[in-house]
Every structure is written in structure tokens, then in C-alpha cells.
């Protein structure tokens, strides 16, 4: 085992990780650990843009942006955080421009802006041009620009290193830690893919920026590597996960493949049509039609297909129509996504409508943080030195449904804040002792997995997980489907204990790492389903057919999911006894299946749910109509 | 389902089971305009050579009696004129530098080992020097009317 010591260790080299690294590497000794080369991160797949009320092309201000974010998130947004994000958005965009990001320009040479779903003028009057963009590869440009700046600033990267454990001063899962106790982070344990060697990184501050967990679903726009590592590691160490039941399904994934076609297609004038050629969004959102927030559009699409108005031979998708746009306009503004349609479906978007269907896209939930990105371990206490930013975190600026472009904003605004906070903390904090033999859990897990001679294939278990999540916990959910999903996930967790890998080597053993990633996915899927089962209402990205209305009295609260021994109550338990009973009936009935896998925190655990109040500063919940 | 066929040499494997990368960038900075001038020279000399060579071919092979006119007398006649001396000298030098530089880049591109590269370049430069020196010498020291030669082979202006 090799030991390294840094003031700040950043886990993940996507947008949030590198933005944090740019701030902290100036101020403190910083290392960035990433399981991919930085330019491979999935930030690069973001297409449409990054909203900021620059008002370069029409009147706009950050307060409207805040309102749109809050309303888009169906009032589960922490409004102080949304305000911070909308305000700092302007500087975040200008910062990127000064770093060299090649934004598209207006005739005056300013940063050009375009319309995007859910972003409106004067609290919902009409769509507004707010999204700053670089063709339809804004994320690619952000990732490249941030990496370029990291090269300039000589940021130290550990590429193709997998972080497999977060070291805390206390055992939050099983140990007796009461509210108010001082809990601090002392570093991370990482696995070097190239050699199979274990590395211990001691650090004063650790920033989690590991991204999402889209691979719990089969149809997803997410990369193969988005397996919720950071979320699962925090969760296994007893840190709660917030609002995990809210998963965003992006309306326009290429049908059957899930590859993303940006909302910018609709921002530039694209229209969704059903099998009868009808512009069906006029019925669901009369004011802003195709530019309604993603949850509404995705649900409307799924509804059209369900009611038999889908297109294609099986009537199982709808059509994104760009044929009325000028080819030159498409080439200038949407070159990449038209190429996706050509490459993967053989469709020529100039002349044919493109088959699309919702695809799992973004986890609104994650590791709970405050607006300074410090990680919470219950509703009030922090884990000292631990920070999180980006999709892995839940600030919560996205509430129950994220608006398009707000993720690129999130990573820049809160990535920067995380870097600053981590460096500032490291400047004054003392070193925290690492536990004795900190690597034993990870090594044991790796060796056990490697040594198991026969067993289920990792791919089979993963396939079954993705299948059940797609079938039972997607756009439409019911108690019945969710109970089925939970049952399946628990069974798969049991099967996971017996999976074996075929590659027994040390160097570049991606087989072994895929197995560990599956363990993370199973943990996350369990939390998603338990949270969804508990939330007996429909809000944003979470739609329960058996409870189709929003229920502010009982559920305008964040779900906090803790990993605890069976029978332990969460720090603040559910208020609604009905829902609690439903969860109890399914999760704790009869034979107790052990909770998620992972021998870095072995034992039998359960998901304990609590609530955290939503921060409301300005906007009282209203009916959400577009 | 799977078959294993003939082994092939491992690309750039250094021998030994270690997986330490065997190619490292040991590039020393060699900035400056040398390669730029070299690159430009190739283009310019190429164009000039086209004119020189086609002029040469026309005069030698087409004009007048064409190819039947070529004999010692014809060549001697040309090289007695400073115009054709300069023409041929230019053609010799440009062609040799152009060709040598071209072969040099090919050696750089395709010789993998430093040793091979050096030997090949040494041979190339030797050939270059020999040809250019000999050629230049011939053009300037050429005697159009060598003594004791049959008059019918000599150019008309020789008064033996």
C-alpha cells in the first residue's frame, strides 16, 4: 500500500471536480483522483447550455431564474440554494468565458443565449432566452476548458484510480454517535486500476464530485461508468442520501438506445408529435408547450404511448420533428445531435422526424450538503472536512425535478464553492488520524470477489437490476410496482454476494471493478425504491399513479435515507404514519434480507428514512402549471 | 466459441512481464526555422525543377532533330554556353538537395532505431556529396574539344 498526504483530495474529475480543483490547487496542496481520464467524464456529454440571466439578448434577471428553478423543482427546492445558484450563475458563465470557453456569439460579439425548458420571463409568462451555449456541445466545451485550465495550473491528477472507501473518525452506521458529536473525514482509500495496488490518501478535506448513478436503469443517457460510487460510499459510511427517489427522465433519448438528444432541439424550435402527427404538448402545457420542464414532457410522452398514440410499428415512441427548420440552422446550432440520429438510427433529421422516448438522465438526489457544500450527516450536523458538489450532491437546488441547463450551472457554482470551502477548511484544520489498517475492508472485499471461483455473472445481475428498475421504478410508479422492484433488488443483493469475476489478474482488471460498481448500483437502487415507496404523492420526477396529486401537508420535505442496523430509527423519522407503515410492511417484513453489499462496511443493514425540512424564503408552493 | 490462433509479436513489448511503458517522450526541444525552410525549399525547388527539367527535356529530346541529335557534340555544344552551364548546375543542385532532403525525411519517418537511422543518413549524405562534387566539377571543367579526337564527333566550333 502506498500512502499519500494532501490538504485537499478531490474525488472525481468531471465538471464539479475540476472546477473545485482550480480553486483549491491555488490555495492548498490538492490531488484529484478520478476513475477516468478527466476528459472522459460525462460532463462532456451535456449538450444544450448553461443558464444565466445575462440578459444579453432579452430582458432577464436572476430572480426570475430562481423562481423558475423553484417551480421547476415542484417546490422541493431549497430556495436559499436556488437563489445562490441563480445569482452566481452570471459570474460562473463569465468565468468560463474568461477561461476561454468558445460560447456562440450574438451579432454584437456577446455570449448568445437561447430558450430552454422551464426557463421563463417574469414568473412563467413566456419562454425566455437564458441558456448560454456552444453549439450543442456546451458540456464538452466546459469539460475541455476546465481541463485546459487544470493543465495550465499544473493540477495533480491520479487518473484511473477508483476510490473505494471514505475514512471517517466515527462509525456512523453501527456506532453510537449522537447529534452534535464531532465527526471528521481523514482521507480515502483508492485502487489503482493499472497495477491493482491500494493507495491511502490522507487529507484534511475531501471533496466528493463523482457524478450520478444512471446505470441503475437500462435505458439511460448516462455513461457506463456512472455507477453512483460516491453516493454509495458515503451511504455505506452512514452518511444519509437525500431525495433519491427523484430521478429525472429526459424526454428525448433516441428511441431504444437512450442516447441523449438535447432539449436545445426544442429550444431551437423542434416539436414533439405523436403517431397521429399531433403536437400533443399543446394539451399538457398550453403556455410553453414543448418547452415545459422535463418531468412533464417525459410523462406526457409516456402517456401518449400508453394510450396508443405512439409512432412506429410498435407504437412505442413519439417523434421529434425538426423538418420545418432550415438545414443551415440545424447545422449551426444542433450539429452533434443530428449526427447521432444519422449514425445510430439512420434517420436524416432534415427530412424525417426522429424517434424519441424518455431516458434515465439525472439523479436529483444525492449526498446532502448546505450551500457551502459541506456534507450533512443528519439534519443539522456536518461531517467536518467532507464536501460534495455536482450530481453526487443534493444541495438541493433541483428539488424534485431539475431544469435543463441547471446541472452545468450546479457543477460550476457549487464546484467552485466546494474548492474554496475545502481549501479554506484545510488551511486551519488539523490532521485527523486515520483508522488503524484503513485498507483492510477494501482489500478484503476485493480479494473475496477475486477469489470466488464460481458464481453468478456480474452482467446478469446488473441486467436484471436494470430491467426491474426500468419496468417498475421509471416514469410511472405504483405501490405494487415499487414493492416488486424492492423485492427484486433485495434478491439481486443476495445474488450479488455470490457473483464471481473471471479476470483474476492485477493489471487493468476492469472485470473486478465492474463487480464493485454493481455493488454500488444495488445500494443506490434500494434507496431509490424505498424512498419512492415511502413518498405517497406525485411531485416532479416522482409520479405515483396511486397518488397522482402533490401532497404538501405530508411531503413537502426532503427524504433522508440512512443505512442503519435493522430496527434503528432515523434521526428524524417519517411524519406520515400511513407511508411509514407502507414502507415498514415491505421493507421489514418477514425474513430480513441483509441490506446493501460491501464488506468495507459489512453486516446486516436496512434503509432508515427520515425527513429534512425544505428551506422556503420567498415562494410559497403554488399549483404548477405551464 | 473461441479459438486461439498464431501468436504475434507483442507491440513494443520490452521483454519481461512488467507493464512499464516502454516508449517515453525523450524529445529535446529543437525549435527554429530549419524544418520550416526545409519544407518551404521542397515546395519552391519542386516548382523550379519542373520548369528546369521540362526545359531540359524539350531542348534535348524534342527541339530540332529531337533525340537523334544527341551525341558528344551536342552536349559539348550546350556546355560551352554559360547559360546551359548555369541551367544544368542549378538542375543538379536543386534535384540533389530536393531528393536528398526527401529521402532524409523518409528515413526519419520509417527507420525505427537510432542506429539504422544514422547509418542510412550517413550513406545518403556521402552519396549526395559525391554526386554534387563530381557533377559540379564536370560542368565547369568540361573540355568540349579534347585533343586527338575524331573531328566528326566534336562540335562544329572545335578547330583541331
Amino acid at each position: 500500500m502506498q500512502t499519500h498526504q494532501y490538504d485537499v483530495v478531490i474525488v472525481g474529475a468531471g465538471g464539479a471536480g475540476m472546477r473545485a480543483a482550480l480553486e483549491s490547487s491555488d490555495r492548498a496542496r490538492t490531488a484529484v483522483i478520478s476513475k477516468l481520464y478527466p476528459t472522459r467524464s460525462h460532463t462532456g456529454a451535456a449538450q444544450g447550455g448553461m443558464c444565466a440571466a445575462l440578459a444579453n439578448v432579452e430582458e432577464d434577471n436572476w430572480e426570475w431564474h430562481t423562481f423558475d428553478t423553484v417551480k421547476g423543482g415542484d417546490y422541493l427546492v431549497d430556495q436559499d440554494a436556488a437563489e445562490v445558484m441563480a445569482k452566481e450563475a452570471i459570474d460562473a458563465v463569465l468565468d468560463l468565458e474568461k477561461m476561454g470557453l468558445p460560447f456562440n456569439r450574438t451579432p454584437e460579439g456577446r455570449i448568445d443565449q437561447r430558450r430552454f425548458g422551464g426557463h421563463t420571463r417574469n414568473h412563467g409568462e413566456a419562454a425566455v432566452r437564458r441558456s448560454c451555449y456552444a453549439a450543442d456541445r456546451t458540456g464538452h466545451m466546459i469539460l475541455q476548458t476546465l481541463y485546459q485550465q487544470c493543465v495550465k495550473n499544473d493540477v495533480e491528477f491520479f487518473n484511473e484510480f477508483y476510490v473505494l472507501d471514505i475514512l471517517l473518525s466515527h462509525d456512523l452506521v453501527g456506532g453510537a454517535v449522537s447529534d452534535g458529536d464531532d465527526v471528521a473525514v481523514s482521507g480515502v482509500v483508492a485502487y489503482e486500476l493499472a497495477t491493482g495496488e491500494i493507495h491511502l490518501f490522507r487529507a484534511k478535506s475531501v471533496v466528493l464530485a463523482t457524478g450520478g448513478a444512471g446505470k441503475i436503469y437500462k435505458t439511460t443517457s448516462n455513461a457506463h461508468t456512472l455507477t453512483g460510487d460516491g453516493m454509495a460510499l458515503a451511504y455505506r459510511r452512514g452518511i444519509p442520501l437525500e431525495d433519491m427517489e427523484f430521478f429525472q427522465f429526459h424526454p428525448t433519448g433516441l428511441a431504444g438506445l437512450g442516447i441523449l438528444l438535447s432539449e436545445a432541439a426544442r429550444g431551437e424550435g423542434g416539436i414533439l408529435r405523436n403517431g397521429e402527427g399531433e403536437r400533443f404538448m399543446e394539451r399538457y402545457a398550453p403556455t410553453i408547450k414543448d418547452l415545459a420542464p422535463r418531468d412533464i414532457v417525459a410523462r406526457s410522452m409516456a402517456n401518449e404511448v400508453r394510450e396508443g398514440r405512439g409512432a412506429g410499428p410498435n407504437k412505442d415512441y413519439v417523434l421529434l420533428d425538426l423538418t420545418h427548420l432550415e438545414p443551415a440552422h440545424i447545422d449551426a446550432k444542433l450539429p452533434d445531435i443530428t449526427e447521432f440520429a444519422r449514425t445510430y438510427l439512420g434517420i436524416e433529421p432534415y427530412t424525417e422526424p426522429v424517434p424519441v422516448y424518455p431516458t434515465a438522465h439525472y439523479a436529483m438526489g444525492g449526498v446532502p450538503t448546505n450551500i457551502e457544500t459541506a456534507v450533512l450527516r443528519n439534519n443539522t450536523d456536518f461531517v467536518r472536512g467532507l464536501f460534495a458538489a455536482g450530481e453526487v450532491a443534493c444541495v438541493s437546488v433541483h428539488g424534485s425535478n431539475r431544469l435543463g441547463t441547471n446541472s452545468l450551472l450546479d457543477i460550476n457554482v457549487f464546484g467552485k464553492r466546494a474548492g474554496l470551502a475545502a481549501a479554506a477548511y484545510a488551511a486551519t484544520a488539523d490532521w485527523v488520524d486515520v483508522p488503524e489498517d484503513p485498507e483492510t475492508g477494501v482489500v478484503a472485499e476485493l480479494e473475496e470477489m477475486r477469489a470466488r471461483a464460481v458464481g453468478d455473472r456480474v452482467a446478469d445481475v446488473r441486467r436484471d437490476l436494470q430491467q426491474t428498475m426500468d419496468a417498475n421504478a421509471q416514469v410511472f410508479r405504483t405501490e405494487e410496482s415499487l414493492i416488486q422492484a424492492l423485492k427484486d433488488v433485495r434478491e439481486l443483493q443476495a445474488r450479488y454476494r455470490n457473483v464471481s469475476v473471471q479476470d483474476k489478474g492485477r493489471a487493468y482488471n476492469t472485470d473486478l471493478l465492474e463487480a464493485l460498481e454493481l455493488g454500488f448500483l444495488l445500494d443506490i437502487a434500494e434507496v431509490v425504491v424505498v424512498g419512492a415507496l415511502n413518498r405517497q404523492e406525485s411531485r416532479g420526477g416522482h409520479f405515483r399513479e396511486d397518488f397522482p396529486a402533490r401532497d404538501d401537508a405530508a411531503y413537502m420535505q426532503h427524504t433522508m435515507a440512512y443505512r442503519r442496523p435493522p430496527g434503528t430509527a432515523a434521526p428524524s423519522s417519517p411524519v406520515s404514519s400511513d407511508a411509514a407503515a407502507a414502507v415498514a410492511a415491505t421493507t421489514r417484513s418477514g425474513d430480513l434480507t441483509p441490506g446493501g453489499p460491501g464488506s468495507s462496511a459489512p453486516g446486516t443493514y436496512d434503509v432508515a428514512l427520515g425527513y429534512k425540512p425544505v428551506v422556503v424564503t420567498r415562494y410559497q408552493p403554488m399549483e404548477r402549471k405551464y | 466459441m473461441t479459438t486461439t490462433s498464431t501468436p504475434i509479436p507483442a507491440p513494443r513489448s520490452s521483454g519481461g512481464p512488467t507493464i512499464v511503458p516502454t516508449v517515453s517522450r525523450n524529445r529535446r526541444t529543437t525549435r527554429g526555422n530549419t524544418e520550416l525552410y526545409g519544407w518551404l525549399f521542397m515546395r519552391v525547388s519542386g516548382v523550379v525543377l519542373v520548369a528546369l527539367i521540362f526545359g531540359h527535356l524539350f531542348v534535348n529530346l524534342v527541339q530540332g532533330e529531337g533525340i537523334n541529335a544527341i551525341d558528344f557534340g551536342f552536349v559539348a555544344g550546350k556546355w560551352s554556353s554559360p547559360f546551359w552551364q548555369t541551367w544544368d548546375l542549378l538542375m543538379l543542385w536543386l534535384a540533389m538537395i530536393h531528393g536528398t532532403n526527401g529521402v532524409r525525411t523518409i528515413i526519419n519517418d520509417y527507420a525505427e532505431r537510432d542506429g539504422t537511422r544514422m547509418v542510412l543518413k550517413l550513406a545518403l549524405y556521402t552519396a549526395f556529396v559525391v554526386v554534387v562534387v563530381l557533377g559540379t566539377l564536370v560542368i565547369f571543367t568540361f573540355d568540349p574539344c579534347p585533343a586527338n579526337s575524331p573531328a566528326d564527333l566534336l562540335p562544329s566550333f572545335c578547330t583541331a
Partner: protein
Amino acid sequence: MTTQLDDSPGTSSTPDTKVGAIPSFDVTLKIRRYTPETHGDEAYWQEFTVTVHGTDRLLDALHKVKWDLDGSLTFRRSCAHGVCGSDAMRINGRNRLACKTLLKDLNPSKPITVEPIKGLPVIKDLVVDMEPFFASYREIMPFLITTGNEPTKERLQSAAERERFDDTTKCILCAACTSSCPVFWTDGQYFGPAAIVNAHRFIFDSRDEGGTQRLEILNDKEGVWRCRTTFNCTEACPRGIEVTKAIKEVKRAMITRAF
């Protein structure tokens, strides 16, 4: 789903003829493997046959091999739709991204050869050491260089100035171009097309003031002048960047600067 697919009944091997069903067919992959830990220090060819669907890409076939047949097959991949640049490999002798190569375009009657990209040290199977590649990238100072005070708001740039370097901003650093270049294969000292493309992106950015320095760097013995305009790089680029043209423009800028 597309007419092309429906028109290929010859390749269909399933009796399933439901309306809209996508035909399946068998492909054989001939993969160049290098697994020093288990098979010694020599690379070898191994063939796998898998059943794939009409819309499947080579990456899907590789996944089928890894997930169902041989877990030890190792390759890099992430986004699976051609934007992350992880899975550049040599497919039937040409550099391609596995996730952008549709199997139906590859003639399934013959085995598809899959090799690691050339010119970079192979570590395991299709995984190569990318460090020399990124070292070249870092050398050309791939970041905006400016002097003086920063403006309060954004730097102004006209749409035409922005368009000037648009093509080279598409680069995803997959190394398909550099590892398709015969000059790079020889000794790996040449900067390579990808580094030049990224230099181009800044040299022709109206906001940048480091063009001269970059031109000086690329005026190196191993710089742009080693380009032989074979167009392999342009042909290999999965993003459709006109790489050779970009290199030509950098050469022209150097000549203009020198005279």
C-alpha cells in the same frame, strides 16, 4: 426501425418476424489480445462469435464478449455515444470509436479484426498507455493565454471570429488521429495531429495572445513539418474534424510569420 435494417433479411438469423422486430445476426470478432499476466509476453489473436442486433455497435459486441464469454477482455469505454473518446481502436485496420461503429456497416460475413491503436505502448488487450499522447497535448499550452486586465464582462468576439476555430473545438482527445499517423508510429516523437489540432484551436481564437509561442513550439523538428499530408488523421477522426486542413493552416501561419 430504419429502412436499411428492414431491407437486410439475408443477415437475419432469428425466426422472429414480428412487425418492427430488429433483425439479429452473428458476428465474429478477431481480437488482438495481450495479457502478460496469464498468456506471457506475446500478443495473440482470439476469435469470439456473438449474436447482435441491427442497431448494435462494435462496443455492444465487445460488451457481449466481456459480459457473457470472457470477462478478462479489457478495453476502455464510458459514454458509449462518441463524446468521451475512451474507446478508440483499430477496427478492420482503421481507427474508429467502437461506440460509433455500427456492426451492420462492417460486413458481418468476415471476422471483424479489433486491435489496440498503434504507436502507443499496449498495456493489456485494447488498453494502451495514453501518457505520451497527453504529454504532447500538454506541451502545446492548450489553454487561453491573455495579457492585461480581464474585462468586467465577457471578451467580445464576433460570430465570424468564433467560427474561425469551430472545427477544432470538437476534439475529444481520443487519439484516433495521432495513432493513425505513420509518422507517429515510427518513434512516437512527433507531436501528432491531436496536439496540433488543439494548438490550432487557440492559435486561431481571436481572444488568445499565445499564438506566437505555440507556433514556436510546433516549429520543432518533431512539429508540424513532419506532417506528410497522408490524410489518415482526417479519415480517422470520429468527430469529422478536418485535421489535415488544420495542420496546413498552422503551417501557413508559420510561414506567414517567418516572412
